[in-house]
């Protein structure tokens, strides 16, 4: 299932040096190529999740409402087991975003899940940079109150959220002007480099994609109007549970929408969410992707795409696009991934049956031609791990307390009088 040129039967795919080099019938395997027999199986592009917090060791810098200086790239944890579980669901790429506590959360990271590789290998090098904006209940801190004795954080209403964004964008515009004036020789002293405003200047210049969290249609529309005011395009409305109410306005601006297929009613602003959202947006010509926002849900995005066919009747290939090429376009990585075409990265998943069939499982997941999930190998490894565990449990140091084992020596921390935090922390925790 190519996601862009229909479904080809009994077809071979040749992947060389990480790229798909040939697609056709009875391709001769080049020497040294590993041949994988997928007779009777289905092959899809690797799934792309356009909204994820997987492998992040921090999500919200909640002290201010505008924290555009913070970078997801700095908090990637390549040992998060959720990466492997996502691969086992056929997911190869993800848009890793800040949370939604802030009006402007910070800079995203578009990654490929190269489990086992060093963290430097995860970010997609040529992916355009992005930034998280957010509106609604989370931003105005509806359900998370300030601890007693501390002031509530501004903003606390949807009115304040829009003004916070407008203020930040205006400051960015002034900052940009200040640099332009300096470079034109109109001023003598260069402006101080501002890490908060630099990424927002990129937003104004259309060089940084805005991924905007929100639920209600009115607040999404207010953001689109704000973007009109400042002359940039919002790349994606994230969640957009009510986007169906303003589908024509979204379509007109070329903004994408990345939604949950059918989550709803978990909070007030999610009460008008309907599973027909994808269909109405699709019918209006909006680029729609289906995301997970969850380590759990990420493993079954194929079934979420299947539901698009049920709720409204989107055709099969367009439903598949919503978890492959559509999110790739939203993230600006569609030249390299998101479909099975010659010249693209070898990011694919092999399934035991149709990927929209509930009884299907992922057999193998590839990124750039490298196997990152192989069910047969996984099952084999379980037996090996069970053996290892049994062996370890028999070791003297691992015997239960009181059953005759030697207790392991616990290293003691050396206490230093000159430690910076000595007066605050006597517990020995660094």
């Amino acid at each position, binding site marked *: 299932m190519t996601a862009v040129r229909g479904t080809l039967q009994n077809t071979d795919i040749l992947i060389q040096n990480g790229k798909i080099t040939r697609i056709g019938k009875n391709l001769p395997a080049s020497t040294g190529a590993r041949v994988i027999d997928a007779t009777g199986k289905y092959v899809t592009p690797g799934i792309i999740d356009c909204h994820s917090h997987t492998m992040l060791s921090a999500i919200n810098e909640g002290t201010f409402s505008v924290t555009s200086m913070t970078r997801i790239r700095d908090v990637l944890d390549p040992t998060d*087991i*959720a990466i*492997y*579980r996502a691969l*086992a669901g056929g997911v190869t790429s993800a848009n890793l975003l800040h949370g939604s506590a802030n009006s402007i959360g910070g800079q995203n990271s578009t990654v490929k899940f190269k489990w086992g590789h060093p963290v430097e290998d995860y970010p997609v090098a040529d992916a355009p940079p992005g930034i998280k904006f957010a509106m609604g*209940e989370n931003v105005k801190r*509806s*359900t998370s109150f300030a601890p007693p004795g501390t002031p509530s954080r501004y903003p606390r209403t949807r009115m304040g959220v829009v003004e916070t964004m407008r203020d930040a964008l205006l400051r960015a515009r002034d900052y940009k002007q200040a640099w332009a004036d300096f470079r034109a020789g109109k001023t003598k002293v260069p402006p101080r480099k501002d890490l908060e405003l630099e990424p927002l200047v990129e937003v104004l210049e259309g060089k940084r994609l805005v991924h905007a969290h929100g639920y209600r249609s009115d607040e999404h529309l207010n953001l689109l109007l704000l973007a009109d005011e400042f002359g940039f395009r919002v790349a994606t409305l994230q969640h957009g549970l009510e986007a*169906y*109410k303003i*589908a*024509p306005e979204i379509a007109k601006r070329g903004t994408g929408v990345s939604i949950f297929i*059918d*989550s*709803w*009613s*978990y*909070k*007030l602003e*999610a*009460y*008008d969410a*309907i*599973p*027909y959202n994808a*269909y*109405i947006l699709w*019918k209006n010509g909006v680029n729609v992707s289906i995301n997970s926002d969850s*380590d*759990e*849900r990420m*493993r*079954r995005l194929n*079934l979420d795409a*299947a*539901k698009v*066919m*049920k709720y*409204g009747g989107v055709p099969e290939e367009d439903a598949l696009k919503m978890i492959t090429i559509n999110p790739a376009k939203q993230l600006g990585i569609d030249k390299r991934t998101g479909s099975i075409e010659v010249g693209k990265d070898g990011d694919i998943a092999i399934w035991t049956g149709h990927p*929209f*069939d*509930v*009884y*299907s*499982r992922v057999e193998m997941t590839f990124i750039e031609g490298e196997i990152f999930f192989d069910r047969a190998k*996984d099952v084999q490894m*379980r037996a090996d*791990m069970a053996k290892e565990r049994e062996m370890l449990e028999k070791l003297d140091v691992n015997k239960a307390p009181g059953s005759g084992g030697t207790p392991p020596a616990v290293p003691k921390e050396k206490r230093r009088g000159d430690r910076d935090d000595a007066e605050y922390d006597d517990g020995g925790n660094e």
Partner: protein
Amino acid sequence: MSSRFKVQSSKLLNQFLYLCLSVVICGSISSIQAQNDGSEQNQTGRAGTFTIIGARIVTVSGPTIESGTIIIQNGKIAVVGANVSIPGGVERIDGKGLTVFPGMIDAGTNLGLAEITQGVNASVDVSEIGTMNANAKAIKGINPHSSHVSIARVNGITTVLSYPTGGIIAGQAAVINLNGSTQDEMAVIREFGLVINFPRVATGGGFGGGFGQGGPPLDFNEAVKRRDAQIDELKKMFRGAENYLRARDAYAKDKTLPYTATDLKNEAMAPFIRGEKPVIFTAERERDIRGVAKFVAEMKLKAIIIGGQEAWKAADDLKKNNIPVVYTNIYSLPVRDGDPYDFLFEAPAKMLAAGVKFCISTGDNGQEVRDLPYQAGIAGAFGLSREDALKSVTLYAAQILGIDAQLGSIDAGKIANIVVTDGDILEPRTNVKYVFINGRMIPLTSRHTRLFDSFKDRK
């Protein structure tokens, strides 16, 4: 005379039209108001005698009938079979190309007890204050007009267990059909099982279903002590109720004995202590499940476990004590990093292989109960046969709830909770074409279809 009559008649007609109009207007106003206050009128469908002709009938209890007929009459399945003569005066439904299933049963939800869980506390009635609430009854908190009711049933779920949470003894669960204007109209079993959050060894790990969530990590030995203290407290609650009941019985027989004032909480314990009704324990981990089995044996209870991540590991104890499992963890992540990625997908197949009686449930508080078939389907992708996957959300659930004589399969004489689809009911691409609950044909409308209709053509 005739002109006067005319006038009168037109007056009457006007009054009639006015009445119709006001009904329409009131109807639309009330539906708008209903949307605003978070509840709505779940239409109760219409009664009748319905015949589904020439459909594939998956009876679940017996062989599938490739082309058969079902007659629904007086709320029951009157006839089902391959060769059925159709009486006159019945409403005919062409079943060609369609498949008939028993309505699905989700035996572990809080449906109707919470409309919007996060940030709208006024709509949440799941957990009562205090550790001992044996007299709290879910049936008294369920909102028959919750939008979750129609959302679940239009996807083929027709019966659920809805249970309270919180404290140690949380209260009594109810088994309800997803149709009715009042709680009593919905009830299959008004007061079913007593829900107990079984005390667990909690060191701050990720297992749910009990105490100790949150807070700093605890030393293991300390956690065991706390668990034991909580089990002692639970035992005291049981012993206290036994003593209360004994004193009440004694006084009833001999009025010279001291009178014991009525205690609603202790009074409510009676059918559960006597083993007449089941106690539902929430438990996930092997050692906690074994702890439940030990408690059940000691107290001589009839029991069910909700949760059951590692139930297959404690199969011997569960079988010995006849404890079935309502498994609620298909949409959960394995707790330990080292667990296989499909650890919780495979658990139903492992329970089946180990001989543990089980059913599959969403464990959801209402809005996602409609995903029940897909959760069973995923278990079907990981070791469970398709037949058993279907049974795990129909007949097996009915058996665990003790309602299999009335529900859970398509057999003559059972309550007509029936779903007609255009394919395998466990597949996400399948469409539900008809739903019958208690023999009433349920409209396939919901909050979602109404919003869809309002906005689908907006230009």
